């Protein structure tokens, strides 16, 4: 094993990348505009949820409820008829439809406990739950305030003070920005190493290397350090300039610690890229394999939806993916300001997964070259 060989071959990789302008444009796009768009597209909390109200009561109480929904959480509610409600929900125009029954106010004051119906389009799961809770508490507040006007306090004076830690405003943009940097890192680290390896084989340059006193391990390490470095620099730029600078996301923890974690993550992802390339024979096969790997990595790593709500088996299987640990690590350091004492298990996990992938990849790589 010669460090200089690895160094020289890595420099060669970097020079090669510098001469593919289209790829560079794509890399720049993935780490700037793509992240910016995604972060700014994410609604802040519940945003502009489409709501409609069927007011069959037409009383002060019902109009009070009607006027309680306003932007930014909800769109201005549409007042619709009972008949329209089904049609509109079917067409996906409304996510929520509140149905206030006839004589609601009379029954309410008479203590007959009337029922307000809240229809939720449960196929829109992200809004269905949080929005449902909001609608419920808004309606309750309005009704109790209405009652208070009539006859003073009756409920218990227990107040619930809710505070969100680490992201007081629950700004989804913060989360979206980080999620997208992570997915760009994942995508790029696999493609740069894997596809480049297949191209080298298709063009015969890999074979040329093998008649020289260079070992497969050196070739692999060269690819890992050079491509890893490119992605590391790109992601550091994305974090400092795009995420912290342009998007103004406050980063709680140490950026150095986070970037060390990223480096470790890149080690395992680039090994995975090489591994996938050795499995796929041709570029089209690699392209498909990539899609089959990227999609679960993106949606099941905990970057899109919380891990703990996934079925146990998925949670367990996804422990093999470096992304899962990286997402935990990123959220802990960036949002919760965790130090090494907290995230060391993730560092360890990434290292172990990286070494396992490296070993596998090296083994396959030797055979791939034959």
């Amino acid at each position, binding site marked *: 094993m010669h460090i200089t060989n690895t160094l020289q071959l890595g420099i060669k990789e970097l020079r090669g990348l510098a001469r593919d302008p289209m790829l560079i444009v794509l890399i720049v796009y993935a780490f700037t505009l793509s992240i910016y768009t995604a972060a700014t597209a994410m609604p802040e909390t519940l945003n502009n949820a489409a709501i409609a109200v069927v007011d069959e009561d037409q009383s002060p109480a019902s109009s009070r409820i009607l006027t309680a929904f306003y932007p930014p959480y909800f769109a201005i509610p549409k007042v619709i008829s009972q008949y329209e409600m089904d049609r509109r929900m*079917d067409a996906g125009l409304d996510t929520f439809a509140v149905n206030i029954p006839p004589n609601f106010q009379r029954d309410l004051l008479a203590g007959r406990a009337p029922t307000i119906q809240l*229809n939720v389009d449960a196929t829109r799961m992200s809004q269905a739950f*949080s929005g449902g809770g909001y609608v419920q508490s808004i309606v309750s507040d309005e009704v109790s305030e209405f009652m208070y006007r009539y006859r003073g306090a009756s409920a*218990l004076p227990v107040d619930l003070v*809710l505070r969100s830690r680490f992201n007081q405003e629950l700004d989804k943009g913060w989360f979206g920005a980080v999620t997208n940097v992570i997915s760009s890192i994942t995508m790029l680290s696999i493609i740069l190493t894997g596809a480049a390896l297949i191209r080298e084989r298709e063009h015969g340059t890999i074979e040329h290397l093998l008649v020289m006193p260079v070992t497969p391990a050196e070739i692999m390490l060269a690819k890992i350090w050079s491509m890893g470095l490119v992605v590391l620099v790109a992601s550091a730029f994305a974090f400092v300039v795009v995420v912290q600078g342009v998007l103004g996301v406050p980063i709680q923890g140490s950026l150095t610690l986070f970037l060390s974690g990223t480096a470790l993550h890149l080690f395992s992802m680039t090994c995975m890229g090489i591994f996938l390339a050795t499995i796929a024979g041709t570029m089209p096969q690699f392209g498909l394999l990539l899609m*089959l790997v990227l999609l679960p990595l993106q949606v099941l790593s905990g970057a899109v939806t919380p891990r703990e709500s996934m079925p146990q088996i998925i949670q367990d299987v996804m422990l093999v993916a470096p992304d899962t640990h990286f997402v935990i690590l990123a959220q802990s350091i960036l949002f919760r300001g965790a130090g090494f004492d907290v995230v060391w298990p993730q560092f360890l996990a990434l290292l172990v997964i990286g070494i396992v992938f490296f070993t596998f990849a090296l083994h396959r790589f030797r055979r791939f070259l034959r």
Partner: protein
Amino acid sequence: MSGSPRASAAVPAVPIARLEAVGLAYGKVTALAGINLHIPSGAMVGLIGPDGVGKSSLLSLISGAHAVQQGRVEVLGGDMADADHRRRTCPRIAYMPQGLGKNLYPTLSVFENVEFFGRLFGQERQERERRIGDLLARTGLAPFGDRPAGKLSGGMKQKLGLCCSLIHDPDLLILDEPTTGVDPLSRRQFWELIDDIRGDTSTMSVIVATAYMEEAERFDWLVAMDDGRVLATGTPTDLLARTATTNLDAAFVALLPEEKRRGHHEVVIPPRLACADEDIAIEAEHLTMRFGDFTAVDNVSFRIPRGEIFGFLGSNGCGKTTTMKMLTGLLPATEGTAKLFGREVDPNDIKIRQRVGYMSQAFSLYSELTVQQNLELHARLFNLPMESVPARIEEMARRFDLMHVMDALPDALPLGIRQRLSLAVAMIHAPDILILDEPTSGVDPVARDGFWQILSDLSRKDRVTIFVSTHFMNEAALCDRISLMHAGKVLVSDTPQAIIEKRSAHTLEEAFISYLEEASGEQASPAQPPAQREAADGAMMSAYHAPSVRNFFNWRRMFAYTQREALELQRDPIRAALAILGSVLLMFVVGYGINLDVENLSFAVLDRDDTTISRDYALQIAGSRYFTEKAPITDYDDLDRRMRNGELSLAIEIPPGFGRDVARGRDVEIAAWIDGAMPTRAETVRGYVQGMHTNWLTQKARELYGDAATIGDFRIEIRYRYNPGIESLVAMVPAVIPLLLIQIPAMLAVLSVVREKELGSIINFYVTPVTRLEFLIGKQIPYVALAMLNFLMLTGFAIFFFGVPLTGSFPTLALAALLYVIAATALGLLVSTFMSSQIAAIFGTALITLIPAVQYSGMIDPISSLQGAGAFIGHIYPTTYFVTISRGTFSKALGFGDLAASFIPLLIAVPVLLGLGTMLLRKQAG
């Protein structure tokens, strides 16, 4: 050779092609400059000159494959810059690009390849099959009709390429180095075939580029080129007379400008002095290599003493390269041993590599590094001492005459210089053995002579052992000993002189052809009885009516691409299996895994009151299915630590005196902290906690105040519609299907085009009458079909395996799916028009399908709540509308009438994407 009947005939006056002041540049590199040329019709015209002088560029301009940049190119009486004229003349021109089988499809059989071209020219089935039958019979390929083109030998590939070119009876046949890399026997057969075909269609003009001067002697008219310019034109006898030389090799050298000729002299290699104590440098014993049931190298043995130049001859695919790879340790031999300096070749032995220099057939240095950088990289990799590197590089640069190109990129250099660079790289570490695989293929005579002079010096002065393969007989004659290989076996191995004598032939070429004929057991040409041939030709000439080429859209041409793409897909079952089975697996994993119904949230309580009532409050939360209680929190530090490491999603603090205050009706606050790192989850938690808090209050109020509290009481009844169980699978599966149906078809469609670009077969699109729309739609159809099959599998699995009910109209869903996958593949084709490398294509496709489809298409956040550019993308992205339709038909029991509005954007997307793709796709290179 004067076998051609028209060699002496007067060249007709009307030119088939007229070039005026034509120039061509690739970026900064000038390929052609100020070419003025009138190419006579009805003749066999040869373009001669070394590689990289612009022969191929000239041919690609004449054929219409490359766009005219400068000057005027007239072919068959019209301007090639005019698209209408190109469309009209395209069916009259046939173009066979350089490179063995470059425009063939390796996985398709011989018959299927020719058939594809027949379809491209719009021929009907009956006519096509008759023509294919004829052509295959005449070229002797008929017995191999079912063999994949990739498994043919070099000579057979070229014959097949010729069949493909001749399927439509062109008036002008353009052949770009058709015999480079082909063995002498196949070469002779190839030219006989051309003569034969020209014999029956007397009007056909042929333009051929070649690097073999001995071939050029048989042509009617020659164009000698160098450095992007025309040196001379005329008949071969003219040229010989003008230069007062006896052969074209010499004539060409004489035509070169003075400064290029300088230093050129014929190579004479001094005889090798046999040493008494000869040590054997390379030794092969019974080397055998099998790939599956195919034997590439069969029991090959030889011993090469130190300092010998050993030549290796044979056609492509006969096992030369495989043998060389075994010698270098690149391939482990199946049987037998290879020894270098008496030591067995061991792929893991790094030391032996220090003594061997290898130059592979294709240029395999890094085109992204300059000449200097390439030399440096290799010097370092061979561990030359740091301080000696600059001196060694300079020595190599001087020896191989690279001083003036040290900062150039290899791609910008002519092949001859690139080959010298390859040799310099192979020599940088002063090896004792050089293994060279066709080092001079495509290099001009002057450069070749220079190259052999270097080899001669290395062998005689430095005692370097040289193992070299070649197709040139004059080079073979320079070797000390040669071996002729055929079909994995060595036919003969001796000195050139002895071989000629053994066969009592005049030349080495004759001797070899006779060996090859003996080995392959056939005579020169698979001759047909003349009578039968005439009948066939008669039919061929009369029956063919060129279909109207002005046709903007021709179904047959379109289906040519459809069928070919489908066949390729069929031959690559891994790809289809990955696409279909992989997506079913993904649907399961993702549908099952994404769960927005947040459950099992961990929470803990900091209970400073610890009374029945405070415990009751905590119990209320712990009892719900959403939360899992963890060990109580001891203090604020504990709370902080456990939230920071993500252990707790929710922390509740109940103040001291809580129970007492509640009982007395005093104001009291419960504090709850939610982990906001993941906002969606935090919001859901907030909703849950608020709901539970309200519940608890009502319940307590009732306990404390009795019925009085029921005044003002009301209920909110929540109905989760379309998905009453709020099961994630039901909500997600209809959204995952659109996700998978855009990614996979788009990826396949992009690569189907970009791959042709990268591997070169895109040329068929450039030079045949197929239109851009036919090309795109033709390629799209198989992937649409595959995607629909995929759709059926996914829907079937969703319904019958995952139990997601399809409550609405299936025909509506299927129709939408069809439109959607057409849009998805069209999107892929649109992307492909921008990309030229497969890596960028893969990355680009992943970027434009994965992110918008997951984030902006309403799969997780509804479109109505998106903002900015994301919202815009969401509104125009087809996935958005298919998600609505998919959810509508799966969960909402809707039919076509209810969803018509969502069909409109899909209906618009298809023509827009295809239109853009057609507009941006270029029908010519450059």
